[in-house]
């Protein structure tokens, strides 16, 4: 195979694989920076992917679908928020419950709405749109700039999230809430409010990732279609050290690994080993080889005013 001829398609495939991971990783970043661990990203993506298809199916408009997806992601994130912030439930358990609720809920609703499990009918979705001029650049143009609108939204959101976290008053408060909630409380800012915001944003952003899966990558919903992407996003978040740019970089790396699985590397490295790669990297990062990955100090702990 000719490496240069393959570069364009591999790059395009990398972007397509990265997009859902990056959205969910950015979402997880807001939640964990506020002090709430969110292993429910998988479920948030799944329910949004489903709601998007239902919205688009009912209305015939992908935009209505997107709105439905964001609404569902937000609603499920709020369940996690109410359970963990207001009722002080265990954050890991609640996240696991969100995943299961989404899996069971979408299975249940598929039978109720479409009459059978498996895969839904095709719906209107976001087709690739070529960006004038930019898409004419050789090799990278068609790969990066002939994509779904949601991909362009991601390009914008990565720097925006980075600015929001590191260069805004909101970001300062959010980070402080995840590190020393007592100080935030003393400064007169409500810790629960900041955490609700963080978890809510994780729902909205994961929903964009879920909507991309069912309304760009595919144009239908099929059972458990997220296939562990929420956990790879969690891996990207940790490997990217809870930093928006870092998380996006890690998502790109994992997206690239997935892209080459489909392009004839099976003979060199078994597919299963390439799929293990993101998870192994995180274990290595957490065990401190090449600098420890350290979570926000207060993540996982409920905050109770003294």
């Amino acid at each position, binding site marked *: 195979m000719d490496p240069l001829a393959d570069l364009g398609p591999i790059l395009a495939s990398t972007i397509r694989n990265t997009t859902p991971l990056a959205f969910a990783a950015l979402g997880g970043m807001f939640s964990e920076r506020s002090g709430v*661990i969110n*292993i429910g990203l998988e479920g948030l993506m799944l329910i949004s992917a489903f709601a998007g298809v239902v919205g688009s199916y009912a209305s015939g408009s992908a935009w209505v679908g997107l709105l439905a997806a964001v609404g569902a992601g937000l609603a499920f994130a709020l*369940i996690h928020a109410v*359970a963990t912030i*207001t*009722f*002080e*439930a*265990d954050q*890991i*358990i*609640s996240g*696991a*419950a*969100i*995943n*299961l*609720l989404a*899996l*069971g*809920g*979408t*299975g*249940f609703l598929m*039978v*109720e709405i479409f009459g059978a499990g498996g895969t839904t009918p095709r719906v209107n979705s976001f087709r690739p749109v070529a960006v004038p001029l930019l898409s004419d650049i050789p090799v990278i143009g068609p790969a990066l700039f002939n994509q779904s609108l949601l991909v362009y939204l991601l390009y914008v959101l990565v720097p925006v999230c980075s600015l929001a976290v590191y260069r805004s008053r909101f970001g300062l408060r959010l980070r402080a809430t995840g590190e020393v909630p007592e100080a935030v409380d003393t400064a007169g800012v409500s810790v629960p409010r900041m955490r609700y915001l963080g978890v809510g944003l994780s729902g909205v952003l994961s929903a964009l990732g879920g909507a991309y899966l069912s309304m760009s990558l595919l144009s239908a919903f099929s059972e458990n279609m997220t296939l*562990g992407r929420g*956990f790879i996003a*969690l*891996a990207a978040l*940790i490997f990217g050290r809870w930093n928006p740019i870092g998380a996006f970089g890690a998502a790109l790396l994992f997206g690239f690994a997935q892209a080459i699985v489909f392009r004839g590397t099976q003979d060199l490295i*078994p597919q*299963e*080993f390439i*799929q*293990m790669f993101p*998870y*192994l990297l*995180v*274990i290595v990062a*957490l*065990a*401190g080889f090449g600098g*420890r990955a*350290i*979570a*926000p*100090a*207060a*993540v*996982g*702990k*409920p905050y109770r005013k003294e």
Partner: protein
Amino acid sequence: MTVDTRPRAETRSLGRLMLMRAVTTLQALAFPVIATILAFSIGAVVILLSGQNPLEAYRALLRGGFGSMSAWGRTLLNATPLLLTGLAVAVPFRAGLFNIGGEGQLFIGAIAAAAVALLMPGPAPLVIIAAVVAATLGGLIWGGIPGALKSLGAHEVIVTIMLNFVAINLVYYLAQNPLSGEGQIPGTDMIGPEYRLAQFGAGLGRAHWGFALALVAALAAYLLIWRTTRGFAIRAVGLGPEAARYAGIPLGANGFLAIAVGGLFAGLGGGLEVLGVYGRVSVPFVTGLGFTGIGVALLGRNHPVGVVIGALFFGGLAAGAQEMQFSAGVPLDLADVLLAIVLLFVTATKLVELILGRRARSLAAGTKLEKGLAS
């Protein structure tokens, strides 16, 4: 618990002491019972909204789970791996560690048992014993990894989540390459019928003697945690790592042991699924048992007796869901939804406080770990 140790205590009537004991036990059940009632109430609303009759649906659920010998057979069949993945969560929990890795540990146990049953020559009873031992060893090793990495500062929750995916991919690789079978469906060959675990018979369907083995495992877990010095050390570490350290009980070795033993139980669960139920490791293999085990352990308040009850409950729920779908027209997936809602509520301290009053806070012991992830 307030046990009066002054001499006057002996004048207390036995009846009063037994009453106190009963009240404590009842209080301990508050969290799981409230969570279950809430889940089934919400489930009833969902069934109503979908145009079915919740009473009829729940009656079918109960009948399908516990209504006949064959229903009990299905329930015991389901409960066997759940009991073990429940123990895989409960034992490390006592050391203050959260093992989300039951799924991966179960997969490793399954492939280890299949490999022995496929490759080892010799008389059948010996091969079965070797396969069971291999499954427990596989789980022990896979559970030992997060235990060992913990001392390097890697949090066990994230490590075990990640190791699940590593294990699943590793097992699928092994089942399709070195151990690949000849058949149409991907995975290993079937193991010989002489290596399968015997079934109970007596109208209990496919339920097999693995369930008895799982009960023995629960007893072993109880003895380890509550009747040995090592178990005392594990509980001490779980109740307060700092205080335990001052008393000369380090987290490192005890935490490692607890999570590795947890892995052992899940590995055994995987082995029993191969030897007792499926006869092979197919691709895909049965998934979700490790995660349901988390619910089993939490509902059973991380106590071996509670885990047995929790496993029967979730096993029955899964068996009954089939009947509910068949005779009441409610999709099977409702069982997952019910489990998810139980999970959401079972650790919700504040919610139970709202229902039972502030005094109830102390009841939360054994349902959650009050710690962060950045330790």
